[in-house]
C-alpha cells in the first residue's frame, strides 16, 4: 500500500493511494491536485550516504570510500511532494540527487545484514539537493551544503516494504523540465541496504521513522530557478519539486 500525509480543507490526514486519487482516513476520496502534500512521515534521525554509487563517485572524482560516508541532516531540510526548494542567488552549481530512502520500522541495534529487511517499514523517494559552491573540507559534506531549509524533498508516498520485491533492483530517473538527466539502478549501490543497516546499527540505535537516504547515481546537472525536477523510482512513484528564487526578506 502507498501511504501519504496531506493537508485538505485545513486538516492534516493520513491517506492512501486509491486508483487515480487518494483516500483520506475519513473515507473521502480526493484528487492529487486538491491537497497539499506533506512529507509522508515525520522523520526522526535522517541519515544520508555520500558516494554510494561508483559512477557518481567517479563523476565527482572520488575514489570509493573504505567506510560508508554517512552524514546526518536536520528536520528543517524536509519538504513534501510538489514542494519548492530555494536556489540561493550566489550559487553556481546546485544539483538534485535522486535517492532511494529507506524508512526504519522498529528499533534496530547490532542487526546483521541477513536480518536487516525485518527492520524496514517501507520506502520513499528523496531528492536531496547539494549546493556545491558551499563545499568545505571540514566534516565534508558540511551542513551549509546539505542542511539547507527545504532542500530535501521526500515522497509522495511511503510504500510498504512488502510491496517492493527487490529494493536492490529499482530503476531511478530524474527529469528536469521533462528531459531525462539522470538514470541509474539501485543494484549499483556500493554498500547495499542490508549492509548499511548492519553498519549503522552496529554503533548506534536506529529507531522507527529514522530514514536512510542511500545515495545517488551519476548524472548531476545544475538546476535553475523555475526548473521542475521530477525524481522517479520504479514502484515508488514520481516526486515533483520546483526550484525557486530566494524570498526577499523584509526586515
Amino acid at each position: 500500500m502507498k501511504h501519504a500525509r496531506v493537508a485538505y480543507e485545513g486538516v492534516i490526514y493520513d491517506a492512501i493511494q486509491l486508483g487515480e486519487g487518494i483516500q483520506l482516513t475519513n473515507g473521502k476520496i480526493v484528487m492529487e491536485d486538491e491537497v497539499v502534500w506533506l512529507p509522508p512521515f515525520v522523520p526522526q534521525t535522517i541519515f544520508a550516504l555520500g558516494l554510494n554509487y561508483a559512477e557518481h563517485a567517479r563523476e565527482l572524482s572520488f575514489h570509493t570510500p573504505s567506510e560508508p560516508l554517512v552524514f546526518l541532516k536536520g528536520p528543517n531540510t524536509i519538504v513534501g511532494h510538489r514542494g519548492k526548494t530555494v536556489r540561493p542567488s550566489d550559487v553556481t552549481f546546485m544539483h538534485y540527487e535522486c535517492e532511494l530512502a529507506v524508512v526504519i520500522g522498529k528499533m534496530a541495534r547490532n542487526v546483521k545484514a541477513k536480518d536487516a529487511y525485518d527492520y524496514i517499514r517501507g520506502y520513499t523517494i528523496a531528492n536531496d539537493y547539494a549546493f556545491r559552491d558551499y563545499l568545505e573540507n571540514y566534516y565534508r559534506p558540511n551542513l551549509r551544503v546539505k542542511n539547507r531549509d527545504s532542500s530535501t524533498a521526500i515522497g509522495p508516498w511511503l510504500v510498504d516494504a512488502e510491496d517492493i520485491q527487490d529494493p536492490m533492483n529499482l530503476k531511478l530517473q530524474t527529469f528536469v523540465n521533462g528531459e531525462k538527466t539522470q538514470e541509474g539502478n539501485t543494484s549499483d549501490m556500493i554498500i547495499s541496504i542490508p549492509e548499511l543497516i548492519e553498519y549503522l546499527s552496529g554503533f548506534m540505535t536506529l529507531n522507527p521513522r529514522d530514514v536512510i537516504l542511500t545515495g545517488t547515481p551519476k548524472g548531476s546537472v545544475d538546476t535553475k530557478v523555475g526548473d521542475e525536477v521530477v525524481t522517479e523510482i520504479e514502484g515508488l512513484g514520481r516526486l515533483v519539486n520546483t526550484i525557486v528564487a530566494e524570498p526577499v526578506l523584509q526586515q
Partner: protein
Amino acid sequence: MKEICFKLQGEAQMKEGLYDEEKQFIMMNRTSQTIDKLNFDIPINGTIYGTLLNYNGAYQQFESKMNESPYKQPPKAPVLYIKPINTHVANGSSIYVPKEVESLKMGAALGIVFEKAATKVTEQSAFDYVFGYVIVNDVQIPHESIYRPAVKEIARDSFCPIGPWIVKKEEIKNPDHLVIRVYVNGELKQVNSTANLVRPISKLIADVTEFMTLNKGDVLLVGIPENAPLAKVDDHVTVEIEGIGKLENVLKCEETLVGEKI
C-alpha cells in the same frame, strides 16, 4: 534565584521554577525542593547542533593543518554536526563507553536554546531568538581527522547528556563570558570560558542562520574548549557552567546497557 525550565522524570509537562544557586534548591508552586531529591529528565526536544573549532585554543591547535591536504584552507562558514535523538540523555543518566574504546572526550558545551524560528538573523537581533541556556556534555570518541562527518565518533547512544535545566535568557547577563569547568571524579580537569569563542554567540547565530533555520526548541552548542578531558568506565563527570548549574553523569561499559536494572 534564577528562572529555570525543566522536566522531571515521570511527568509529561515541562515545569518552571526558581533555582537558588547558593542553597541548591528549586522553588516551584511555592514549595521548595533540594536539587539532589529531584530526578531531572531531558529538558529539550528539538534538534541539537554542535559547532566545530569555535574556541580560539581549539582553532589554534588545528590551524597548522588547515592549509594542508585534505583541508587545504581554513573553514569559512561555521562547521556544524548533529547530535541525534539516540544520543540525548538526562542529568544523572549513564554515558555508555563502547567496548572497543578506552576513553571518551568530555565536550563541555554551552547550549543555546531557541525560542522561535531564526532564519537569516542579524548579529544585533540574535538574542531576540534565544529562549535560554543549557549545559551539554558533547561526548565523542577522540578523532584526529575532521575531514569526513564523524557520525561514528559523535552519534553513539548516550553521547549527549543535557540538563539538568534551561536557565532563561534574562538571567544570564553576559553569555559570552561564562566560566566552564569539567571535573572527573571530583578533580578539576578543565577550566575555560565562553569569552574565548572564535565566533561569539550573536555572530555564531547570525552565521549559522544565514544558511539554515534554527527552529523553536532547537539547541546550538557554541563549541568545545581545547584539550577536552578524557574519561573512562566508572568515572563520574561534572560539567559546570557559571550561572547555569552542573550536569553530572557516570560512564559505564556499553555491555551493561543490556540487562541493567532500571
